[in-house]
C-alpha cells in the first residue's frame, strides 16, 4: 500500500544465550515501507529469515505503542534510535534513508544480561522496586480520596516522575550503566506525594543500596539518560534522589 519503499542493510547482534560470545551478522532489509515501525521492519526481515530456514532475530516487544517498556535496543549507538522521546516500537522507518546501514545492539550492562540476541533480562529493575518503590498500604477501607489535598503543581511533578516505563534505555545509554534515572524517578514520585512521605527515608536508602547490589554503575551526571528517555524524565529526579539520601543520612525517617 505504501507509496515507495527502501532497502537497508542491518548489522544485528546475534547471541544464542547468556554464555554465547555473540557476534554481528548482516541482513538485507528490502522493500521496507517508510511508514512501518522499526519493529515491523524487523518482523519483515524475520519472516524472510524463517522462510530461508534461519532463526529469526529475537527481540522483545509487547504493546507496540510506547507505553509498556518491553521493547528497546540500541540503534546506531543510540538507545531506541535517533528520535527523541520515542521507543523503538514508535520509531518509524521514515527516519532512515534508502541504502542506510543500521547497527542494532542489545542494551549492554552487567545488570541486564543478554538472554538472546536483543533480548535482555531486566529483573534488576523489579528488585529495585521491591526494595522500597511503593507505599506500604494494604488493601481495604482507606480515607476518602479527597481527604488529603495535593497541590496540582506537586501532583503534576509526581506524575512526570511516575511516567517512567522501566524500559532500561537510561541504563543502556549511560556510559556507566547507572540506574539512577529509573531509581530517582520512583523515589521522586513517591517522595513528592503526602502518601509516600512516611517511608521516604527507608525507601531511598533501600532502593539506592539495591541499585548497587544489582551491579549498576554510578551516576556521572552525564545526562544521556534523559536524552534517550522515551518519557523525557528529567535528571532533576536524580538530584532529588541525592537530596532524599542526604536527608536520610541525618534523619530517622
Amino acid at each position, binding site marked *: 500500500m505504501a507509496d515507495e519503499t527502501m532497502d537497508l542493510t542491518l548489522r544485528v547482534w546475534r547471541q544464542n544465550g547468556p554464555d554465547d560470545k555473540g557476534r554481528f551478522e548482516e541482513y538485507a532489509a528490502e522493500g521496507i515501507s517508510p511508514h512501518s515501525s522499526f519493529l515491523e521492519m524487523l518482523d519483515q526481515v524475520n519472516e524472510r529469515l524463517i522462510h530461508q530456514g534461519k532463526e529469526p532475530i529475537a527481540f522483545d516487544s509487547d*504493546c507496540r505503542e510506547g507505553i*509498556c517498556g518491553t521493547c528497546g535496543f540500541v540503534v546506531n549507538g543510540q538507545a531506541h534510535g535517533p528520535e527523541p522521546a520515542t521507543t523503538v516500537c514508535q520509531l518509524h522507518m521514515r527516519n532512515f534513508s534508502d541504502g542506510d546501514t543500521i547497527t542494532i545492539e542489545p542494551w549492554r550492562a552487567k545488570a541486564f544480561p543478554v*538472554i538472546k540476541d536483543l533480548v535482555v533480562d531486566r529483573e534488576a529493575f523489579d528488585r529495585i522496586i521491591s526494595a522500597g518503590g511503593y507505599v506500604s498500604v494494604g488493601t481495604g477501607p*482507606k480515607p476518602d480520596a479527597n481527604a488529603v489535598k*495535593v497541590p496540582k503543581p506537586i501532583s503534576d511533578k509526581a506524575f512526570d516522575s511516575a511516567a517512567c516505563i522501566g524500559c532500561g534505555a537510561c541504563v543502556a545509554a549511560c556510559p556507566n550503566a547507572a540506574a539512577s534515572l529509573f531509581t530517582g524517578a520512583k523515589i521522586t514520585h513517591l517522595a513528592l506525594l503526602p502518601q509516600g512521605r512516611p517511608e521516604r527515608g527507608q525507601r531511598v536508602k533501600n532502593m539506592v543500596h539495591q541499585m548497587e547490589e544489582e551491579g549498576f554503575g554510578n551516576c556521572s551526571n552525564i545526562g544521556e539518560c534523559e536524552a534517550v528517555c522515551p518519557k523525557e524524565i528529567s535528571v532533576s529526579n536524580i538530584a532529588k534522589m541525592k537530596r532524599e539520601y542526604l536527608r536520610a543520612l541525618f534523619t530517622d525517617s
Partner: protein
Amino acid sequence: MTTLDPNVPDGPLHKKWDNRREELKLVAPNNKKKHNIIVVGTGLAGASAAATLGELGYNVKSFCIQDSPRRAHSIAAQGGINATKNYPNDGDSIWRLFYDTIKGGDFRSRESNTYRLAQVAGNIIDQAVAQGVPFAREYGGELANRSFGGAQVSRTFYARGQTGQQLLLGAYQALQRQVERGKVQMYPRREMLDLVVVDGKARGIITRNLVTGEMERHAGDAVVLCSGGYGRVYFLSTNAFNSNATAAWRCHKRGAMFANPCYVQIHPTCIPQSGDYQSKLTLMSESLRNDGRVWVPKNKEDCSKPPEQIPEEDRDYYLERRYPAFGNLVPRDVASRNAKYVCDEGRSVGRGGARAVYLDFRDAIEEQGREAIKDKYGNLFHMYEKITDEDPYEVPMRIYPAVHYTMGGLWVDYNLMSNLDGLFVAGEANFSDHGANRLGASALMQGLADGYFIVPHTVGDYLARHRPDPMRPDHNKFDQCEEETRQHIQKMMDVGKNGSRTVIEIYRELGKLMYDKVGVSRTKEGLEEAREEIRELRDQFWNDVKIPGEADNYNKMLEVAGRLADFLELAEVMAMDASEREESCGCHFREEYQSDDGEAARNDDEFTNVFAWDYKDEGEWEKHVEDLEFENVELSTRSYK
C-alpha cells in the same frame, strides 16, 4: 443444554454484596499461610489480586508472560476509570453507574454483578490514591473528574492519557512489596499452558519457561486466572503483541465454560492500517469525538482527493446525519458499524486503499482556537503525527475501528468462580460485568474491583469451605498434564520443521477472516462460512505451519504458534456463538436482526441470557444457558437518534 446457577446472594440489589460478604467463610490467620494460591497474569486484576492475597497471608505464586509484571497490557489503557464519588456534585450515584453500565451492555449482563461493580468502584479510587497514584487534580488540590464516553455525569478519574499505566504501577508496586515480604513469589516470562484438575478441582498449572523452554509444575489450592481478553484472535487489534487467550483456553479445554465469546468491542477511533506489514493498531482516546467531526465524501470519486479540496456540500457527516441527538458521540459500536458501512460503500479515505474515515478538527479549531484544542488533545495529536506523519491541525485525522476489548470470557458465578471448583477468573478474562458492550473507563474499574475487593474474599470462602488437602506437583495428574503439553509442543515443532507457511502468515489470514465475518457486522451465512474457513485454516496450521528454532530456548515464534493454535479453536466457538445468538445486541450486530431504520434489534424474549460453551472435542461444544433476570431495571431500547 443445562441451566447454570450464578450463585447470586439473596436480598435486595443493594444488599446483595453485603449479604454475601457476611456469608463468606473465613480462613483463620494461622491457616492462611498453609494455602498456596496461583495467580496467572499481572494486569490490573492479577497484580491487585496477588498483592491482596499475599497481604492477607496466603502463599501466592504469580505468573506473567512479560519480562516484568509491570508490563501487562492494562498499562496501555488511556482514558480513565469510573467511580461514583460524585465529587462534582452532578447527581451521580451507585445506581446511575450501575444503570449506565447495564444499559450500555444492552441488558446482557448479570444485574447483581454489575451493581456490585458500581458499589466498590469508589473504594478503588481511595485505594489508588493511598498507593500514590498521581491522578489529575484541580488547582485546589482535589481530584479532577471528566465526563467520558458520552456519560451525562463527570465520574471518570484520570492520569493524563495514561490512567492504566498509573493504576497498574500502583498495583505492581503493591505486588512487589509482597514479593519483598516473601508472600508472593514472582515468575516472569512464564506461559501457563495447562490447568491441572484433580477430582474436579483446579489444583495447579503447567507453565513453560519462555527463556529455557522448560516445563514447570506448580501446585496450589486455588487458581486465579487473570490472563486478559482474546482480542488478538483478530491479529490486528489494539491489544499487545503477546496478549493471548491460551491460559483461558487451556482452562476451557479442561472443563471451564466459555461464555459469550461473540461479544467483542470494536473501538471506533484507531489509527487505520497503513500496510501489510502492520503488527498492531493504535487506539486514540475516544474523547477526540467530543470535538472532532466524522465524515467521508458523498461521492466515491472524491475519495482520492485531498480533503481540503472537497467542498462542504460534498461531505457526508454521516453520524450527525443519522443520529442528530448524539451525533459524533454515539456509542462505540454504533460509530464503528457506521464507519464500516460507509467504507463498504466505497467511500473510504484511507492511504493507498486502506479503510478509513475522516475525523476532522477544522471546525473545532476555528471555534475554540488552536490552543484550546492543543490543550485538550495535544498529546493525542502528537502521537497521531508521530505514527502517520500527518499533522491533524492541518489535515483531518484518518481513523478506523479496531478490536479493542472482549466482553466474553470464562463463565463465572457471582463469586467469580468458574464452573470448575477452585478456578477463579477475574478481569477481562471472565465473561464479565459488561454484557454485550463495555462503556468507556470501566475496564480498569472492573479489573481492580475483581482483584482488590472481590476475588481475595471469595477465594478465602472457597478454601474455608472445601479445605483442600495439600497438593504436590508429583501427583500423577501433573505427570499427565505435563506430558500432554509436551506432546502438543512437540507436535507443533514436528509440523513446523517442514511446513511452508509462517505462523504470522496464517495468523494474519485468521485475523482478516475474523474481521470480515465475525467483526462489526455479522450474518448467518458469513458466520457459517467463517466456521468452515477457520477449520480449513486450522488444518493448514497443523499440516503446513513453519516454526523456526528449537523448543528448549527463547523462541518467540513457537510461543505465537501455540497461541495461534488456540485462537484457531476459539475463533470457531466465537463464530458459533455469534451464529446462535439470533439477535443484535451491544457489539454483536446481526444484519438479519435490525429495525427498519437499521438499528440493532434485541430479542429479549429469547436471548436475555448468557451462552456458556462446554468443550467436548475439537470443534464440538455443548451449549449451556444462564438466564439473566432483571428485577430492578426495565429493559429499554437504546436510541441515539
